[in-house]
């Protein structure tokens, strides 16, 4: 398991795939491989990212390695009836096409064991609502880079309210112009300034349910 953790940290996708396969063949349960191997590795990467000790491209390499292992685990996890982790619907709000930050958040959340439903960029409020309902998501995560598109976050939250979904999901927001104060003001449950803290925040929100 330690070697899986290290291979995720090193971002060695091939090796992760091999090791995960070995573990499965050796009879280790899929959810143990996930939590004690892949997620444990990404937790270390996340912590280093938070401290600015690693570079983003290396983090993404680790995320790719993590995904390589996940691909093998998914069918087993589904078959064994073990949940794949809470679902997060993720997108940039209407009018905003700046999605690099959002993509990073997606990768980190996946790395942390969440099921991420990335619905892309320039997403209108109705679409957030629709997907949240269809997917029975626990979290809706939105980002905006521009002060001009930032108000769309409130529009989405209001739409969730109007559709009776607000009590069922936690809402987290982020993006360069967003602040914790703004998040509170528009009625979001949480704010994160970067991908690593988004991972922490989503964990915290889900645990609080």
């Amino acid at each position, binding site marked *: 398991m330690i070697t899986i953790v290290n291979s995720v940290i090193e971002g060695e996708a091939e090796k992760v795939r091999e090791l995960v396969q070995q573990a499965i063949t050796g009879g280790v349960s899929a959810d143990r491989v996930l939590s004690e191997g892949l997620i444990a590795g990404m937790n270390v990467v996340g912590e280093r990212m938070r401290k600015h000790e690693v*570079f983003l*491209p290396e983090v993404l390499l680790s995320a790719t390695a993590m995904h390589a292992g996940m691909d093998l685990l998914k069918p087993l996890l589904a078959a064994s009836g073990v949940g794949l982790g809470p679902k997060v619907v993720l997108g940039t709000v209407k009018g905003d096409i700046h999605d*690099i930050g959002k993509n990073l958040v997606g990768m980190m959340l996946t790395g942390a064991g969440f099921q991420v439903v990335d619905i892309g960029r320039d997403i209108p409020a109705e679409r957030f609502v629709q997907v949240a309902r269809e997917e029975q998501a626990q979290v809706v995560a939105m980002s905006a880079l521009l002060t001009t598109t930032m108000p769309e976050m409130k529009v989405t939250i209001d739409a969730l309210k109007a559709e009776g979904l607000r009590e069922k999901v936690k809402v987290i927001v982020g993006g360069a112009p967003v602040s914790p104060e703004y998040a509170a003001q528009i009625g979001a449950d949480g704010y994160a300034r970067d991908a690593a803290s988004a991972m922490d925040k989503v964990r915290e929100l889900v645990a609080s349910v």
Partner: protein
Amino acid sequence: MHGVVPLKGRTAEVLSREEILQIHQAALEVLKDPGVKIEHEEALDILNRGGAEIDQAKQVAHIPAFLVECALNQAPRFMTVCGRDPKYDLKSGTGEVHFTNGHGATFVNDFDTGERRPATKKDLEDNVRLHDALENTHFIFPEIYPQDVPTRALDRHISQALLSNTEKPVIATAYDSKGARDLIRMGTAIAGSEEALHQRPMFTVSLGVVSPLLFERDRVDVLLEICRFGHPFQVYNIPSAGGTSPATLAGTLVMAVAELLAGLILTQLVKPGVPVRLEGYPSIIDQKYGCFTFACPEKALMAVAMAQMFRYYGVPHGIHGATTRANVLDAQAGYETGIFDMFTALSGSELIIEATSSGMENTVLSVHEQAVINNEICGMVYRILRGIEVNPDTLAVNVIREVGPGGEFLTHRHTLEYHKIENWDARLGNRMASDEWVESGALDIRAKAREEVKRILATHHPRPLDIDVQRKLAEIVEEAEG
């Protein structure tokens, strides 16, 4: 120790070819008349035998132009000062820019109390250890002159502290001929034998010409001892325009060049072929405050001009970077050293002296944090000197095609490969957004530098000298204390 060739050899120039020749011609005239005063009969005899005309009563040597030609032909174009660890060997003449710390502070800000107080030998030892750790200090000067040791043995104490606390090459100190012999004894003890010291000289020693045009007796004694031993030597001067040299920058350059050439001539007459580095630090007198000014635009211009003169002569050389005039670690301290280090490094001079200095107040005060900040500045300067690499792989047309309109480059393997090569990794400068910076303690550059100093002094310990060698050095110091 590898430096950086600036911008693929495109260096900053402040003098035209014709102006270089004009300064050279004027310096030759000055060497002939008025000549240089040398308070040393033996040295005057040596110059006389070489072909200079001597005025014995005035102790002045009138030096003809042909002696300049001879000296430039004899003096090696290259010079290597070795580290105790060979990876730190400092080679001149490679086209690479290197940085050194500063010299001569007699006061420090106490690291624990912040109080300004006279410097101690312990301060010097810590300072040397700090520079041993800073990756952009390539050659270590005595940045601090301790005030808690007997003056008669000060040079031995300084040399001992330098040679013991770093594996990088150093500028040692000797104030008279006995001091010079003791320094050779120290070097021999460390190297194992005189022969080994010749093979891998781990220090140089300097003579400072006293502007205008004066060579002091004791310092000439040191030159004679060290050069006769065949050990690398340095000649420097610090003329100040409007005080000890003409108020015009061109006139100051003429005198600075003349003085250094006179020093070079003397070394080559004493021991033809002895390696010598010339270092010119001309600056100006601030005519309001009546003091020499270590960080002013005039000094920066003259530093780059000196680099051009030295390249014209083809000699190992160094020019001055900045020591700030500021009294505290403030914006002035940052902009003075930042602008200076950048501009002087662009000159392509092989040695930028004072660049990583802890010195402030015109080198009077040493503050550890300043060295760490300057090390960061030099890292930034090096990145700029490295320039822009242009080749098919860096032009990245295929990568742009693969990503396509509206895509992102963050996850492309080309980014993974190149970001570390292209990007300079700022260590101290803040790159956090406001909220994270506040959460992390809202540390400014002084506080960040202070943490870095603390970390280095607590953890960095260069390989110590063998216990027998330490004992030998201590004996030499004790003898001198008498």
